[in-house]
C-alpha cells in the first residue's frame, strides 16, 4: 500500500472551533484561529509558511505539529463531453474519486465521503472494493479545494464513493466548513447530500443542516428494492418516507429521489402508480438516471425511449421528473470504476 502522504496532522478540515483550540494549546492569540481559517478556506494556502499575517514564531510552532494537508489529484481522466474524473489519494494511501461535471449554466462536483462502501448495492462499483475507511472532513473538502476548476464550481453533490450518512461526523463537519462564513461560505442550496436512507443519520442531517437531501430510491416496492439495496432490510423505504414527511422542510430545502432506470425492471406502469402513491404529499423531484453498466452485473440500461416514456408517465401523475444526462461514460464515470482499477493495480 502507498504510505500516507501526511507526515503531520492536517490543519485543513478543522472547524473554527478546532482551530481556536489549537491556537489556545499553542499559546497563540485567539484571533489566530480566524486568520488560519482565512488562509485555509479562502486563500487556500498550500503551506503554513505562506500565512504571512501570522508571526514567524507562531508559524514555527504550528509547523512543529501540523501541516496544511491539501492534496492535489494524482490522476485525471477527461471525457469527450467535458466531464473530468479526478483521482485523489486519501491520508491512508487509498484512492478516492471526484467527478467534475461542467454544464452550460453550472458546474457540479460529485465528491466521495468514504473509501469504498459497506452498503453492497447491486448496481454500484464502489461496493466491489468493500469498505476501506472513512474520509475526514479535510479529505472531503480537499476534493473541492484542490480541484483545478475550483473557481468554476457552482454545485457540490455528495454522490461519489461511499454512503455519506455512514460517515456522519466527517460529512457534517465538511458541510460546516463549506457553508460557514469563516469557511468557504457556500450557500447550502448549492449542496446536495445523497443517501440510501440511513434514518438516524438522515434525521441528524435534516436537523442540523440546510443542505438539500437526495434519497436513492430505484424502486417503490420494498421487495424489489431489497434485492437492489440490502439497506432496505434494516431501514425500509416506508420508514424513510415517513421520516421525511414528518420533518418540516421549509421552502428553500429540496428533496429529490434518485432513480436509476434498469431495463425491464423498474419502469412499468405498476412502478409509476406506486411511485405516485408513496410520494404523494412530499414536495419533491424525481431524478431519473442512466445506468452505467459495471462488470458482472445482471442489470442493463434501457433505451433512451424507455426513459423518456417513463418520465412522461411520472409527470402525467403529477410528479416533477427530470432526466439526468449520462455523462463521462467513456471515462468509467460510474462511481468507483477508476479507483477500483487503481486499487487493483496497487495490489498487483
Amino acid at each position, binding site marked *: 500500500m502507498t504510505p500516507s502522504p501526511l507526515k503531520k496532522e492536517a490543519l485543513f478540515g478543522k472547524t473554527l472551533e478546532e482551530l481556536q483550540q489549537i491556537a489556545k494549546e499553542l499559546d497563540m492569540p485567539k484571533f489566530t484561529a480566524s486568520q488560519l481559517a482565512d488562509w485555509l478556506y479562502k486563500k487556500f494556502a498550500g503551506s503554513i509558511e505562506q500565512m504571512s499575517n501570522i508571526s514567524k514564531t507562531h508559524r514555527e510552532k504550528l509547523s512543529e505539529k501540523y501541516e496544511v494537508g491539501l492534496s492535489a489529484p494524482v490522476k485525471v481522466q477527461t471525457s469527450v463531453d467535458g466531464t473530468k474524473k479526478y483521482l485523489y489519494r486519501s491520508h491512508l494511501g487509498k484512492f478516492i474519486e471526484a467527478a467534475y461535471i461542467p454544464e452550460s449554466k453550472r458546474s457540479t462536483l460529485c465528491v466521495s465521503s468514504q473509501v469504498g462502501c459497506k452498503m453492497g448495492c447491486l448496481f454500484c462499483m464502489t461496493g466491489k472494493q468493500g469498505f476501506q475507511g472513512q474520509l475526514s472532513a479535510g479529505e472531503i473538502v480537499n476534493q473541492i479545494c484542490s480541484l483545478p476548476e475550483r473557481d468554476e464550481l457552482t454545485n457540490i453533490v455528495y454522490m461519489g464513493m461511499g454512503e455519506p450518512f455512514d460517515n456522519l461526523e466527517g460529512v457534517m463537519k465538511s458541510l460546516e466548513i463549506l457553508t460557514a462564513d469563516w469557511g468557504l461560505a457556500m450557500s447550502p442550496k448549492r449542496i446536495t447530500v445523497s443517501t440510501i436512507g440511513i434514518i438516524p443519520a438522515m434525521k441528524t442531517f435534516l436537523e442540523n443542516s440546510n443542505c438539500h437531501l437526495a434519497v436513492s430510491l430505484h424502486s417503490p416496492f420494498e421487495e424489489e428494492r431489497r434485492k437492489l439495496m440490502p439497506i432496505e432490510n*434494516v431501514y425500509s423505504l416506508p420508514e424513510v418516507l415517513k421520516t421525511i414527511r414528518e420533518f418540516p422542510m421549509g421552502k428553500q430545502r429540496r428533496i429529490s429521489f434518485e432513480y436509476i432506470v434498469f431495463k425491464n425492471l423498474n419502469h412499468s406502469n405498476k412502478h409509476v402508480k406506486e411511485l405516485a402513491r408513496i410520494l404523494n404529499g412530499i414536495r419533491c423531484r424525481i431524478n431519473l438516471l442512466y445506468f452505467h453498466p459495471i462488470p458482472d452485473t445482471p442489470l442493463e440500461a434501457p433505451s433512451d425511449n424507455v426513459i423518456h416514456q417513463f418520465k412522461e408517465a411520472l409527470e402525467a401523475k403529477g410528479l416533477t421528473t427530470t432526466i439526468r444526462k449520462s455523462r463521462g461514460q467513456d471515462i468509467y464515470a460510474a462511481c468507483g470504476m477508476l479507483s477500483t482499477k487503481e486499487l487493483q493495480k496497487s495490489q498487483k
Partner: protein
Amino acid sequence: MRELHTATIIHNKPIAPGAWLLSFKRTFDFIAGQVIGIALDQHTEPRLYSIASGEKHHEIWILYTVKQDGLLTPPLSQLKSGDKIRITQPFGNFICKEKEAVWIATGTGIAPFASMFFSGQHQGKTLIQGSQSMERMYFHKHFQKEMGTSYHPCCSRETTAGCFHGRVTDYLEQQPGIKTGIPYYLCGIAEMVVDVRDILIARGVPFSNINSEIFF
C-alpha cells in the same frame, strides 16, 4: 432515534479472541433475522446487531467483535452480569420464509442464521459458514450436529477434518452444480456479500433470488 429500553445483562463473555456473546432477558417477540439497536446510555445513537438467539429463547443473544477504536464495543465488553444497557425494539426484514434456501455467512454474519437455526428453521436449508479459524466458527458444533451434510464450514487459515479449506467464495466456485431456483441469504461484510453475489449471479442465480444483509 428509536425508543430505548433498559435491559439487564445476564452474561457478557468472550467466546473467541476478540468476539463476545452478550445475553439479556427477552422481553419482546421478534422474528429470526431481525436486528436490535444497542447503546450504553440514553443519549448515544444505538448500533445495530442481529439477534443470534432463537425466537422462543428466554434470553436474547448478541454476538459482537470488539473494535479497538470503536465507541461502543470496548466499553460494552467491560460490562458484567447485572449491568444495564439500552436497547431498541427488534426490527428489520432479513427474514427467511422459504422451506428450501441456502444461508451463507462469514464471521459474526452468522448471527441471523444462528437465530433462524435456534428457532428450528434449519430443515431444508443449507448453511455455508466461513471463518479464518475454527475458534471463530461460531456455533459450529450446533450446526454440525443438527444439519449434518447440509452444513459446510469453510476455514481459510486452518485445515480441519470435515471443513473445506478456503473461503466461502472458493467453496462456491468449486461446486459443480449450484441450484439456481432457490433463494440465497447472505450476511457478512460488504466485500463478502458482493463477491458471493457476483459468483452466484455468474453461476446463473437470478439476483431476485439473492437476499443480503450487510454490516455497517
